[in-house]
């Protein structure tokens, strides 16, 4: 209870009060999406007493609550274990996952690593002393409490802890700060996928069908000019007209993903869009004649919000040039992928000066899939200016994500992982996929635990120690494709990770 104490400014005064300390850990991971899962598992396996704080009732973030059944990008380390566990539950087929079974898989993996999980809990403040994180303030059914931690990994997706701690951040695209289009993913059941496959070749991205429905008034307005994704959920009866699909088509534009008012607008708008979209699909798309709406994802498909300023900012140029970095902690192959902030369509290229000329550069061949083209009919090229037919994209080429992108510049003992990494708008649009986030989490969790063991701040952790540990855990850093200085001296048969508690380890010292 606080007194009604209104100031002349119109604000209320909240008196100072005592804050109960709920618990204390070596490592607190904030956010239980793919990044947080990776961070918590790896920190615990390195012996740190680890807590994972999540505001919803399950783990997985966009993979589960967002119905994004597409875990794309490189699979390594914990990601490989996750794929194996999904497969064992008949929850993985092709490159699609079952969002419901995925929850259970992650529960078991995280608990199995010895992580303590705290659900239904929001982080609302950072505890900072002498420029270093000391813990976080939480709010849940038990009220407002403190959790102390020697290291905090911010996997909130929104860089919430870093922002509370006063770290500098960027938001949205250059110029107007607008975020990428935000999706409301939805599932349809009762689909005859074979019939759909037989038809879709005639209108691959539904471009013509969407225009037809607009002309006939069966779509009130254009939410997107093409189908972004349609993925089949595994584990359903096949060939019996009982397929289930997850669809990315509903989009809100001109979004401010740091405003709860705007997130509310997006959620309400998304459900209205899904209402007319699924009826449109049922009427127009062969194979969907008998379909029904199962659900909309309760977690909005936010693609970007805060990007926390780190010791390095990965840029559009870095990813176009497939730049390799000495402090690589994971790799990504995914190029620019901007869901248009203020209109329909996707943008998969970046304008930049290269060799004194303006180029519209795509990063890897996926850029050919752009639906919005450069201005004035300018051609798309690769970084070196070679156009279609000449551009030679290294098949399976990738760019590095450096450790410095996970180390916020402005505070110690904090790491960030996931879509809130230190990046410019266009680079972030590429390295934000599910598995890239999980891999960043693995690196951040490992770094948090190693830095504790070595009693240095994460910023001062020798990156070679981190890289050697990641490789020993089965992570792929592109080490077979380019020389990584710290790994050159790595002995054959690198030592396995230690599984002792850091708390106990420190007590013995």
């Amino acid at each position, binding site marked *: 209870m606080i007194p009604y104490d209104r100031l002349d400014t119109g604000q209320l005064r909240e008196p100072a009060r005592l804050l109960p300390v709920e618990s204390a850990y070596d490592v607190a991971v904030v956010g239980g999406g793919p990044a947080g899962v990776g961070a918590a598992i790896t920190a615990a396996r390195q012996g740190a007493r680890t807590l994972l704080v999540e505001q919803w009732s399950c783990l997985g973030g966009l993979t589960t609550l967002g119905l994004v059944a597409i875990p794309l990008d490189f699979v390594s380390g914990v990601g490989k274990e996750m794929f194996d566990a999904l497969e064992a539950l008949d929850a993985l087929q092709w490159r699609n996952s079952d969002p419901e079974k995925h929850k259970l898989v992650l529960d078991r993996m995280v608990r199995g690593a010895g992580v303590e999980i705290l659900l239904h809990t929001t982080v609302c403040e950072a505890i900072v002393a002498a420029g270093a994180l000391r813990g976080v303030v939480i709010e849940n059914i038990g009220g407002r409490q403190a959790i102390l931690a020697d290291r905090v990994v911010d996997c909130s997706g929104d860089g919430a802890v870093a922002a509370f701690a006063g770290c500098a951040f960027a938001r949205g695209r250059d110029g107007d700060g607008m975020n990428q289009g935000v999706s409301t993913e939805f599932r349809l059941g009762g689909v005859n996928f074979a019939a759909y496959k037989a038809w879709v070749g005639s209108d691959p991205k539904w471009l013509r069908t969407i225009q037809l429905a607009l002309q006939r008034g069966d779509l009130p307005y254009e939410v997107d000019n093409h189908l972004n*994704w349609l993925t089949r959920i595994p584990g359903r009866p096949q060939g019996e007209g009982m397929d289930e699909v997850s669809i990315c088509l509903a989009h809100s534009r001109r979004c401010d993903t740091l405003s709860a008012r705007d997130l509310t607008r997006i959620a309400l708008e998304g459900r209205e869009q899904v209402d007319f979209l699924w009826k449109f699909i049922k009427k127009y798309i062969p194979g969907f004649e008998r379909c029904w709406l199962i659900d909309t994802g309760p977690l909005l498909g936010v693609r970007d919000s805060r990007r926390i300023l780190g010791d390095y900012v990965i840029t559009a140029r870095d990813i176009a040039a497939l730049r390799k970095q000495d402090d690589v902690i994971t790799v990504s192959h995914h190029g620019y992928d901007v869901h248009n902030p203020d209109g329909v369509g996707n943008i998969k290229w970046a304008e930049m000066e290269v060799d004194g000329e303006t180029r519209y550069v795509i990063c890897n*061949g996926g850029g050919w899939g752009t639906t919005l083209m450069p201005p004035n009919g300018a051609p798309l090229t690769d970084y070196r200016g070679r156009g279609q037919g000449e551009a030679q994209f290294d098949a399976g080429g990738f760019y590095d994500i450096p450790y410095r992108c996970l180390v916020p510049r402005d505070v110690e003992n904090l790491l960030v992982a996931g879509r809130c990494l230190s990046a410019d708008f266009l680079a972030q649009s590429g390295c934000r996929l599910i598995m890239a986030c999980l891999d960043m989490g693995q690196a951040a969790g490992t770094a948090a635990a190693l830095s504790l063991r070595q009693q240095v701040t994460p910023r001062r952790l020798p990156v070679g120690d981190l890289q050697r540990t990641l490789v020993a855990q089965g992570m792929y850093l592109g080490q077979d494709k380019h020389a990584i200085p710290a790994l050159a001296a790595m002995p054959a048969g690198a030592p396995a990770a230690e599984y002792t508690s850091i708390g106990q380890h420190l007590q013995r010292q």
Partner: protein
Amino acid sequence: MGERYTVTTRCTFCGQCQVECPVAAMGMSARGAVIDQGRCVGCGNCYRNCASQAIDALAADAAEGSVP
């Protein structure tokens, strides 16, 4: 060797097949992913890792001439 594979119009240009191909047989064009049938060893990694089920497995003779 295994089956032959062909890319259909459902390709969304995500590029995952390029990463998964062990023999660098996957290219990307303005029409979507393309399989270099001369290099393809029929392992099926592209097929299994396609999130859009855009790659079809065909009998070896049926794949001839069907690559976009």
